[in-house]
């Protein structure tokens, strides 16, 4: 049969297992697309073509021998260049680590490979996963739906590669929205797992109390497939939970009858949310209602403060990690990264502790809302992807700094501050033709419920089936 690279990981894995698609053929198809499209899109920093073809040949031989294979057997994936890969440079999107070659795989990479996945390469990101990069050292990532527009970040390449079918599925890392933001603006699904569910070992850290590796896929099922592979206790990350990992794919029943869905008023109906986003999210909530869920509004009053509180905490944790390089290699940072870390380095401690207090209250308010509701929904972003130039002009006022940095982050950072699972799923297109996204937030360790709701919504709509206007 002809290969469709947009099929996504779960369906491709089934076709490989049924020997209807060859892993070698599949890897070649993605490498061909990368060759043709990635000069412009810049999803990848490093493509591991030869190693991928070798792995594909081994995967094909294993199929020919018969016997059991892993759930991702023969399926090409790619990971954010924040995850260590043995023998393959891991730059974290920075000149500072341009020649860094780890001697072991991150736990998540090792688990994907053990499940039979084939690493295609390392994906572009904002420098050190911080966000706000002005000049990307390894090329400007571009939105496949309109290449003049931003991709979202920090897992920029992870969103682009899935949206443009430059891999079957990808792995990103979500500190304050870094999986959900590119999923939103690139029109794919992306899941931030419960903090503590997925190992951070081998992940270049940004903010220890927020960092959460998570999948981006063409479907919610692809996210569930990858989450099931990477989740679970890891002795090398002592903050991972020891509880058993559920079968996330089995939870995708399509059934939401009886679930209570709360539409977060402050994020959905607040003044910052563009009307077309509000309309799309309201319509998505109505779809869940039509499917049998009980839907009503819920207020979480502190959420508009979440962006500033998050940045104070996240950036301070990051600044502590970067202090030595900030002193010795300041000129090697992108100016946007450097200025963000410098500002955090100088933040008064009393303000940081106020941010921590706000975090605890936001966590409590979300927990209260999730006592009366099974999941909460809101926009993933308050607007569709802006142009790349929006984020690259100099900041000339305090007001501009606040608007650029805090407003948009108040949409994705609440779940990060509270350590909750959150899924971004396509829910429409704006007048400009760019994707819009629904965010679904759940209780800690109830990722399966979040994925179930996202999958049910996805099955009732066709937004995820649309493809960006790229050459065939």
């Amino acid at each position, binding site marked *: 049969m002809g290969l469709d690279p947009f099929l996504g990981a779960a369906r491709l894995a089934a076709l490989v297992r049924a020997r209807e698609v060859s892993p070698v053929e599949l890897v070649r198809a993605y490498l061909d697309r990368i060759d043709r499209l990635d000069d412009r899109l810049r999803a990848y920093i490093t493509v591991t073509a030869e190693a991928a073809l070798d792995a594909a040949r081994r995967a094909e031989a294993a199929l020919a021998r018969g016997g059991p294979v892993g759930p991702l057997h023969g399926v090409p994936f790619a990971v954010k260049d924040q995850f260590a890969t043995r023998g393959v440079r891991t730059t974290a999107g920075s000149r500072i680590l341009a020649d860094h070659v780890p001697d072991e795989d991150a736990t998540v990479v090792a688990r994907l490979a053990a499940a039979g996945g084939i690493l295609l390469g390392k994906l572009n990101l904002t420098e050190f996963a911080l966000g706000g990069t002005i000049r990307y050292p390894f090329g400007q990532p571009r939105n496949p739906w309109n290449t003049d527009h931003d991709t979202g970040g920090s897992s920029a390449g992870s969103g682009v590669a899935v949206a443009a079918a430059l891999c079957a599925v990808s792995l990103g890392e979500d500190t304050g929205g870094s999986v959900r933001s590119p999923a939103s603006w690139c029109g794919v699904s992306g899941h931030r797992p419960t903090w503590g569910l997925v190992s951070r070992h081998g992940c270049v850290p940004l903010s220890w109390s927020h960092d959460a590796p998570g999948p981006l896929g063409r479907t919610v099922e692809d996210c569930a497939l990858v989450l099931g592979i990477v989740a679970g206790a890891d002795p090398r990350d002592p903050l991972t939970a020891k509880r058993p990992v559920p079968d996330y794919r089995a939870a995708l029943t399509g059934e939401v009858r009886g679930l209570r869905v709360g539409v977060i008023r402050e994020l959905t109906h607040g003044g910052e949310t563009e009307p077309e986003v509000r309309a799309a999210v309201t319509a998505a909530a109505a779809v869940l209602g039509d499917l049998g869920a009980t839907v009503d509004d819920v207020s979480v009053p502190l959420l508009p403060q979440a962006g500033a509180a998050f940045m104070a905490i996240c950036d301070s944790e990051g600044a502590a990690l970067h202090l030595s390089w900030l002193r010795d290699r300041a000129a090697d940072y992108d100016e946007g990264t450097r200025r963000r870390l410098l500002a955090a380095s100088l933040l008064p401690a009393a*303000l940081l502790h106020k941010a*921590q207090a706000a*975090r605890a209250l936001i966590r409590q308010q979300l927990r209260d809302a999730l006592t009366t509701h099974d999941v909460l929904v809101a926009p993933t972003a308050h607007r569709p992807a802006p142009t790349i130039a929006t984020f690259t002009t100099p900041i000339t006022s305090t007001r501009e*700094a*606040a608007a650029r940095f805090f407003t948009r982050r108040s949409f994705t950072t609440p779940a990060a501050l509270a350590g909750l699972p959150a899924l971004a799923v396509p829910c429409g297109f704006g007048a400009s033709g760019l994707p819009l996204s629904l965010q679904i937030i759940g209780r*800690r360790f109830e990722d399966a419920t979040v994925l179930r709701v996202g999958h049910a919504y996805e099955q009732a709509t066709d937004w995820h089936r649309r493809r960006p206007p790229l050459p065939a």
Partner: protein
Amino acid sequence: MTELTEAQVRALAEALALPMTADDAAEVTHRLNAFIGALAPLADLPADGPEPVPAPIDPDGA
């Protein structure tokens, strides 16, 4: 808390041995003042709320 001036920001950076260009100083001042403005309302948050532990604590689970 009042807004910081660019000179104050330069002095803070110098005290911490953090190199800063003139352009950096101007933008870092805006960024810091944005933090101060955005976090100021948090001073009114109830002081008897939940303890501000940095990461989620789940005594029943992890």
